[in-house]
């Protein structure tokens, strides 16, 4: 299972089609992957496990999300004012 994820991460070209977000509006796709990356990192590191599977979410949100949005959200997380639940 871990190998499959590793292969997927290694062969990453760009964010693949996600059936949860089939339409033109991809805003939620970007936000969801950003949330999932932070939730995954938080969950795995709190258990003391390797967080490399979370890289998938990071690659996807980096592909999809505008850099200005990511910087803003990173700043909000540091401030403690991020609106999403992580």
């Amino acid at each position, binding site marked *: 299972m871990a190998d499959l994820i590793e292969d997927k991460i290694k062969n*990453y*070209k*760009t*964010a*693949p*089609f996600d059936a949860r977000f*089939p339409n*033109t*509006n*991809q*805003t939620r*796709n*970007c936000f969801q992957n950003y949330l999932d990356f932070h939730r995954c990192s938080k969950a795995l590191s709190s258990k003391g496990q390797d967080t490399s599977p979370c890289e998938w979410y990071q*690659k996807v949100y*980096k*592909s*999809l*999300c*505008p*850099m*200005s949005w990511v910087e803003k959200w990173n700043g909000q997380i540091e401030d403690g004012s991020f609106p999403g639940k992580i």
Partner: protein
Amino acid sequence: MAHPTQLGFQDAASPVMEELLHFHDHALMIVLLISTLVLYIITAMVSTKLTNKYILDSQEIEIVWTILPAVILVLIALPSLRILYLMDEINDPHLTIKAMGHQWYWSYEYTDYENLGFDSYMIPTQDLTPGQFRLLETDHRMVVPMESPVRVLVSAEDVLHSWAVPSLGVKMDAVPGRLNQTAFIASRPGVFYGQCSEICGANHSFMPIVVEAVPLEHFENWSSLMLEDA
């Protein structure tokens, strides 16, 4: 790009635009045939000395001119729906580019591997070199590999804009806070021009879009160079 006194579409640079072009030719031909027929009938009616005062109704012709238009509409609808669904097909992009609209320039972000981002301003008329196109050229072009499905995510940082490239058959509104997805395949190498398509202030007419489709190796060289310069 568009040229003076142009009447039709620009040459297609993507498969979807080719389909749209052919459909437009098909629909326009039907429209022209019907218009010619109607115009002929009008002139024939107006210029004859014959009269017929005793016709009341005719079942046969009524049936013909009900069924025939229905058939013509079906002949228009079927290719139209075919293209509609073709444009909606799930594609597997090789590359994702973000096009962000600002007042009054576009910025492009290529973040699949590294964080490459740059602004694309229109070249002012006084700075054009001979052979360049007025109000269409930009200092940095959005370079894409040819024959590869490209996903473009369009958004805006301030007001509404719209990212349009007619020869690729692409137009997508840029809405602040929203990420709109569109995709295209550049079937041939070349330079394709477009202009902002949503009123966005004083310089709305002066923030063009230039897409340059090149072979993959050239694209890779270009992106390495851009990353070094950044």
